């Protein structure tokens, strides 16, 4: 089968959840299909500045077609976005917003219109960007939409009203995403598959140095990911301080690029970005992983924690991550104010919850299970 994957950015060096998922899917499908990727020449999702060479290249067995982004994102984009999201505005404002957001790639769209019919199935990644929002309507009869949607303002905008009625099938990352899309667009009649993700076995790592370092001070509570307000790390820090002031012990370790100010305290450690090996060593050494973010479309770090038997604590505000935790029975979710109690409860049952998470990930994220779900999605759309 000839399969095309359309995604806003692509490559080993691209950081981003949906982009990583797209690359994993491309390589899994390429084991038994002819797989191509249509993408842009951008690396950065904000500026869309040119980075890769336009044209064809190979990423292992996957043929990558890169099309030029015309223009970079306007410096006034944020103002335009605030206007369409939160102020009185017109239909044309919403339509213009899509092109302003970018990546505006006319060559990719023309390619889809001309060559789309030569593929049996076309998988579109991320509902929000122009290659999908303007590209999928050109080939709806062979399209699957892997929307990676969460409950956010742009989902209400004009360019997406029809988009979610057009594909032949949906690939969702979680059951929560499926429920959100169905509730918003009343499109239950379009078949769908909850894909989740497949994971490689964790690499070799040594958790002992971290354990030896932190254990004397009490439980090691780990946050792994971008350290920013957008990920609600500010709330986590406030909850942590309240927990300590209430007599709780331990260290909060933040591993990830810091994009906010972090209070200088002995019990809060910011490690910055860590290597893959250190990442898994930290995950295994931690007594619990905390994910306070309200907007996660999959929460892949939860799955990685469970791979090494560490339970997770997630914000109850995020339906996706609390759904994941409930399905895996691998931790707990907390409301603001209930952090300390939830933490104590998870620590008390660390081994049982961690093991349950490990069993869940082994069943759901093993490659054969993922490949089967992927194959079902492709079968739903293939011509």
């Amino acid at each position, binding site marked *: 089968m000839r399969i095309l994957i359309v995604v806003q950015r692509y490559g080993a060096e691209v950081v981003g959840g949906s982009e990583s998922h797209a690359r994993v899917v491309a390589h899994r499908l390429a084991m038994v299909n002819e797989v191509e990727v249509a993408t842009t020449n951008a690396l950065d999702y904000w500026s869309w500045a040119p980075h890769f060479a336009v044209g064809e290249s190979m990423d292992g067995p996957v043929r990558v077609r890169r099309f030029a982004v015309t223009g970079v994102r306007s410096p006034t984009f944020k103002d335009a976005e605030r206007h369409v999201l939160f102020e009185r505005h017109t*239909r044309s404002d919403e339509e213009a917003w899509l092109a302003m957001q970018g990546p505006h790639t006319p060559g990719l769209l*023309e390619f889809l219109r001309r060559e789309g019919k030569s593929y049996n199935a076309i998988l579109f990644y991320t509902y929000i960007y122009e290659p999908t929002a303007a590209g999928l309507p050109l*080939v*709806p009869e062979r399209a699957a939409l892997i929307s990676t949607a969460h409950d956010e303002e742009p989902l209400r905008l004009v360019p997406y009203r029809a988009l979610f009625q*057009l594909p032949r099938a949906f690939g969702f990352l979680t059951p929560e995403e499926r429920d959100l899309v169905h509730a918003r667009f009343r*499109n239950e009649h379009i078949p769908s598959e909850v894909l989740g993700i497949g994971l490689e076995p964790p690499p070799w790592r040594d958790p002992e140095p971290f354990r030896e370092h932190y254990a004397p001070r009490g439980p090691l509570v780990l946050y792994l990911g971008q350290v920013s307000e957008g990920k609600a790390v500010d709330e986590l820090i406030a909850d942590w301080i309240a927990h300590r002031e209430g007599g709780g012990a331990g260290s909060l370790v933040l591993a990830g690029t810091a994009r906010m100010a972090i209070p200088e305290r002995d019990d809060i450690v910011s490690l910055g970005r860590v290597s893959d090996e250190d990442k898994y060593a930290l995950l295994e050494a931690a007594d619990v992983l905390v994910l306070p973010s309200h907007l996660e479309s999959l929460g892949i770090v939860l799955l990685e924690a469970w791979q090494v038997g560490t339970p997770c604590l997630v914000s109850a505000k995020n339906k996706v991550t609390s759904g994941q935790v409930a399905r895996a029975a691998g931790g707990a979710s907390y409301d603001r104010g209930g952090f300390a109690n939830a933490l104590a409860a998870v620590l008390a049952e660390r081994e049982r919850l961690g093991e349950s998470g490990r069993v869940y990930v082994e069943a759901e994220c093993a490659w054969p299970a993922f490949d089967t779900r992927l194959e079902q999605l492709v079968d739903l759309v293939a011509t």
Partner: protein
Amino acid sequence: MRLARVRHAARAARRPGGDLSGPSLLVVVQRYGDVPGGAEAHARSVVQRLRPHFAIEVATTNSTDYLTWKSDLTAGLDKVDGVTVRRFPVERPRAWNFKLYERRAFRGGHTLDDERAFIDAQGPYAPELLDFLYRRGRDYDHVLFFTYIYYPTVLGLPLVPERAVLVPTAHEESAIGLAAYKPVFHAPRAIAYNTEEERRMVWRRFRNERVSNEIVGVGIDVPAERNAARFREKHGITGPYLLYVGRIGVSKGSRELFANYERWRASDPAHDVSLVLVGDAEIAVPKKSGIVHLGRLDERDKWDALAGCAAFVMPSLLESLSLVTLEAWAAGRPVIVDGRSPVLAGMARRAGAGLAYRTSAEFAEICELLTDDPGLGDRLGRSGADFVARTYTWPRVVETYLDLFAEVRARLAA
């Protein structure tokens, strides 16, 4: 959900002419009222029949002329047959060089920009109608779009897809091959096709079998009293005659009809059969003996004319549903169609009520056959009347629409 209903009821109550007797329905069509055009007449007759079942309104333009889209009506609220009609201004007439936009969009190496420019240039360019659908479309339980091809449908349907039902009135033509039309056929909740032939063509092109659909069409009202003698006397028509009713123009195949008729009469002067044309002429009608152009007729005159014809001739290739062909059958007359029109030839075959020609010689042969053997014409005509009574009746059409709309509402409320 309950809140939404209350809000909706409040808005319905504020709407001019809105009543709370049933679910609400907005009908979107490029022209509406006393305008010629099959799809427009179709829309108006459907509105009249659905009116008892819905709080119904029409959103359309302030133009009656599909060639120029000149603004010849007042924009704003209007009433037609007691139904509220919202007329939105056409902001620019059809481009004088529209043919150029057509050529650009229909050539092999065209771009998406060519397609977009074609849709705007074809018109009717009424952005305020789109703004209305954007802001208020979701206040209606359903929105029924007539005709896939024009700006109000192509750009309007994607604003309310979850409550949209499309009456495509589609046939094979260059425009339907444009990528811009794919969402129109994939996004709506349901499609009401006119004929099996239309549905087959759309499925083959778009692969949109998944979209809920029915073959709906229209109902034909047949007046009880039809008097051929009255027609002959009023217009001074003697002897057998072939009849054409409709717009007389290039796209309707009128030139081929004139040529075929003249060739037949020249080669076979013994058959003194005239060709009676009813309708506005966009091209010159040949001043040849035997050809009679009567212009537009009222309904009674038209049915009298249909009742008396030896055969009704429909030379148009581009029809998704020819109302007047159905009327000819309802009047019990046979129909002569161009075999290259898949819809008309398919319907004539299924109805067992028409003969199709592919060449001038075949046209002549059919004309001779029907004039020499009036019994054959009567038999075919009876079969046509049965076909129409079986398929194209208002109770069936209305019921099918009600079912489609109920399905749309059920999905929205689920």
